[in-house]
């Protein structure tokens, strides 16, 4: 599931390539591009009508629908981000695939899919129009179309930055090559092209990733030894939560203190439940993959196939994160400590949580296999982009353009609009990606944007499906109020009435000459003091002492005849904050060698002649920071981590969406029953699709999947 993940924050940092690939790896990547373009050109002849282009001709088999359904979600942000989550939160990361994955997919397959399929809608906003009327459809259509291109752009931006970080590839080249390839194959083949490439991506991801857990578990000598190594290593890797249990799913959720996420069982069960139900059951990008199946049975079975595979995804996501805790070591054999993106040393001297999967790839995969792993990563990004663009084209053409702009044109006209929309979607995505280079602080916002929209939408859709009394006014206001409430809650937890002052920091300019005083050796080496001999520095929230004058808080100056001492800690907002020193590319005065480091809480001396650019920053609204005084009202604990806050926010939003939809419906006039046929429970007879062998019965597989889901939760309790 695409929860807001710290992976996007990796975009902030750049360095040389983390892994290096050879000629064979480039050949493997090149072949992938040729094949996806060949598929696009081949499929053009099969996308000759609107139904072909937007709905893949409604011909998909259960297997294609199921694999595409799961692949649309299995992007590289997902695999890398959730490996990082498992490194950070241990086994709790697997909940996203169990109670947050397979469980809601089961619900979609058995409860909701019959309504989506039988009403023959082309989209989730299309269902809203049938069930509630044009108001709800317009709200959902416009919001969804915009969200798709914004999310696609954010994904593209992340891809370019991550490929630069991992492989040192140029960001502009990555954006344009990937975008043009996606534009070509989606414009030519429409949804069928996007779906086929998602199925292709599925195989690449599994063949490119599955070897890591296999070799990792051989390397660590089995599951039991891995868990023992984890509990031993987290004392070093995560000292702030060293007492927390990283090795179980539920046992450690009795209180906020006994697990690394700072959440309790209620938040996990209901918060995760709300987010995941909304995501899997009403995010049109997902639902579109299965409503294009050739019949209801194939749609349900396809969804169940997706649910079964979802339960296997922890093999390639959670286990690598856990292996990162157990097997990654320094040259001296000590556990390798990966740090948060906000750490002083992140991307300078220390790798970050997000690097756990690439580090394992570099450790276990040789030539060719590494290229396959990188190809899987690129394929994941590109198919995610293609999914967003094709969903944008469908929703814009069917739910905005046709009902509100040009009503009665022919099929060829709408097909042409769809193709142009695909190109427009890619261009808007590129524009979004480039705008993020200048406004990278809105990345956090873009990641959660989708949750403002789909959680309220789920509340409205599920009430509409299960209760015939739900009225058009109830649907509209339930959706709008809950969406505004969700946005309001997000603003609230990121608001700082007393002001948020970023940690005082000093960034040493490229080529600055420094002297670093250290103690200890190897892992125990500590920096005691940094002296900047020449060059320039940028400071934030650090008062610069000036002889005979008030300290400089903002502006520019050159250190005069006397050296300036910046203390190891700076007083701000009534407490003392450590000074963060970032030196991404400096020259050591003793050896004349280049060096880089990042450290908190050491004094810095500026010698005469050093140029200083000082800033003084106070934010009253900070999208990347959570105000603990506010989060305690949302997530029931000041210790709640961002993930816990997001889950609780989703839960409250869903409750409000249900309450408003039901409340307003009770006071307003419902649609007549004649207009609700094939849309609501009790008025939707299931079609007779003829006899089928026992192994094609959805209920049988749903029961089996439920039993396995329960068993997995019990085994890893």
């Amino acid at each position, binding site marked *: 599931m695409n929860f807001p993940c710290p992976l996007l924050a990796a975009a902030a940092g750049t360095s040389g390539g983390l892994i290096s690939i050879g000629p064979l790896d480039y*050949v493997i990547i090149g072949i992938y591009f040729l*094949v996806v373009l060949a598929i696009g050109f081949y*499929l053009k002849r*099969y996308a000759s009508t609107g139904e072909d282009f937007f709905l893949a001709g409604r011909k998909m088999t259960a297997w294609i629908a199921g694999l595409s359904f799961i692949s649309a979600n299995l992007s590289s942000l997902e695999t890398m981000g959730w490996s990082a989550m498992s490194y950070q939160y241990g086994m709790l990361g697997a909940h996203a695939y169990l109670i947050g994955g397979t469980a809601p997919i089961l619900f979609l397959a058995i409860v909701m899919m019959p309504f989506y399929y039988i009403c023959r809608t082309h989209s989730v906003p299309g269902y809203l129009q049938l069930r509630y009327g044009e108001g709800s459809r317009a709200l959902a259509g416009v919001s969804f179309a915009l969200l798709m291109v914004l999310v696609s752009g954010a994904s593209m931006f992340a891809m370019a930055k991550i490929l630069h970080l991992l492989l040192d590839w140029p960001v502009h080249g990555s954006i344009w090559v990937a975008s043009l390839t996606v534009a070509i194959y989606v414009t030519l083949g429409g949804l069928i092209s996007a779906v086929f490439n998602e199925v*292709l991506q599925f*195989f690449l991801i599994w063949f490119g990733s599955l070897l890591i857990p296999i070799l990792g578990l051989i390397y660590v000598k089995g599951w039991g030894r891995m868990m023992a190594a984890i509990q031993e290593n987290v004392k070093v890797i995560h000292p702030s939560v060293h007492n927390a249990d990283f090795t179980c799913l539920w046992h450690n959720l009795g209180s906020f203190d006994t697990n690394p996420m700072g959440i309790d069982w209620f938040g996990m069960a209901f918060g995760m439940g709300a987010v995941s139900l909304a995501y899997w059951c009403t995010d049109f990008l997902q639902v579109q993959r299965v409503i294009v199946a050739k019949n209801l049975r194939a749609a349900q079975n396809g969804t169940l196939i997706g649910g079964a595979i979802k339960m296997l995804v922890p093999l390639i996501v959670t286990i690598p994160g856990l292996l990162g805790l157990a097997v990654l070591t320094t040259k001296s054999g000590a556990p390798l400590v990966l740090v948060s993106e906000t750490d002083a040393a992140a991307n300078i001297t220390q790798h970050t949580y997000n690097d756990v999967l690439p580090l394992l790839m570099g450790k*276990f995969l*040789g030539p*060719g296999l590494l290229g396959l792993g990188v190809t899987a990563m690129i394929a994941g990004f590109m198919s995610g982009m293609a999914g967003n663009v094709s969903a944008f084209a469908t929703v814009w053409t069917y739910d905005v353009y046709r009902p509100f702009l040009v009503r009665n044109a022919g099929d060829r006209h709408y097909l042409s609009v769809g193709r142009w929309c695909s190109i427009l979607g890619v261009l808007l995505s590129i524009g979004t990606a480039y705008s993020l280079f200048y406004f990278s602080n809105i990345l956090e916002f873009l990641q959660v944007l989708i949750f403002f929209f789909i959680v309220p939408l789920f509340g409205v859709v599920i009430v509409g499906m299960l209760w015939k009394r739900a009225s058009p006014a109830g649907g509209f206001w339930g959706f709008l109020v809950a969406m505004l409430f969700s946005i309001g809650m997000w603003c609230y937890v990121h608001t700082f009435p007393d002001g948020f002052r970023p940690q005082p920091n000093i960034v040493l300019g490229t080529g600055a000459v420094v002297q670093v005083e250290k103690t200890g050796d190897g892992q125990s080496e500590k920096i005691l003091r940094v002296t900047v001999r020449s060059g320039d520095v940028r400071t934030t929230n650090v008062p610069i002492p000036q002889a005979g004058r008030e300290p400089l808080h903002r502006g520019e100056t050159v250190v005069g005849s006397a050296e300036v001492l910046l203390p190891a800690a700076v007083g701000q907002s009534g407490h003392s904050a450590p000074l963060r020193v970032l030196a991404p590319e400096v020259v050591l005065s003793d050896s004349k060698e280049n060096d880089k480091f990042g450290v908190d809480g050491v004094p810095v001396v500026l010698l005469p002649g050093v140029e200083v650019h000082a800033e003084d920053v106070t934010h009253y609204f900070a999208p990347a920071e959570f105000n603990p005084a506010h989060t305690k009202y949302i997530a029931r604990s000041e210790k709640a981590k961002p993930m816990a806050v997001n889950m609780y926010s989703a839960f409250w939003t869903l409750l409000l969406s249900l309450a408003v939809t039901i409340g307003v419906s009770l006071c307003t006039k419902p649609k007549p029953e004649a207009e609700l046929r094939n849309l609501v429970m009790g008025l939707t007879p299931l079609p007779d699709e003829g006899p089928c062998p026992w192994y094609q019965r959805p209920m049988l597989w749903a029961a089996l999947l439920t039993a396995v889901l329960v068993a997995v939760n019990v085994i890893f309790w």
Partner: protein
Amino acid sequence: MHDEHQVPIWFFIGVLLLIYGVLIAASGTYGAIQPPPVEQRVALWDLHADIWWSLFMAAVGLFYCIRFNPLRPGETLTGDAEDP
């Protein structure tokens, strides 16, 4: 949908996996015959995972190529032609 022979997605997948499998197996075999310096070897290099994993990949690819051969009568894009 259309009358001419159609190439199922599974065939494209089979071809890609087969090519990848053969390329990586060849590279792995060469690496086993001419081992790289110790410092350039990945962890568990001696298991030669690149060889057996790529052969498995090639076998899956070959299966898909044969099973979803586009020359099969009535084959469709989604590969759901009835078996003769």
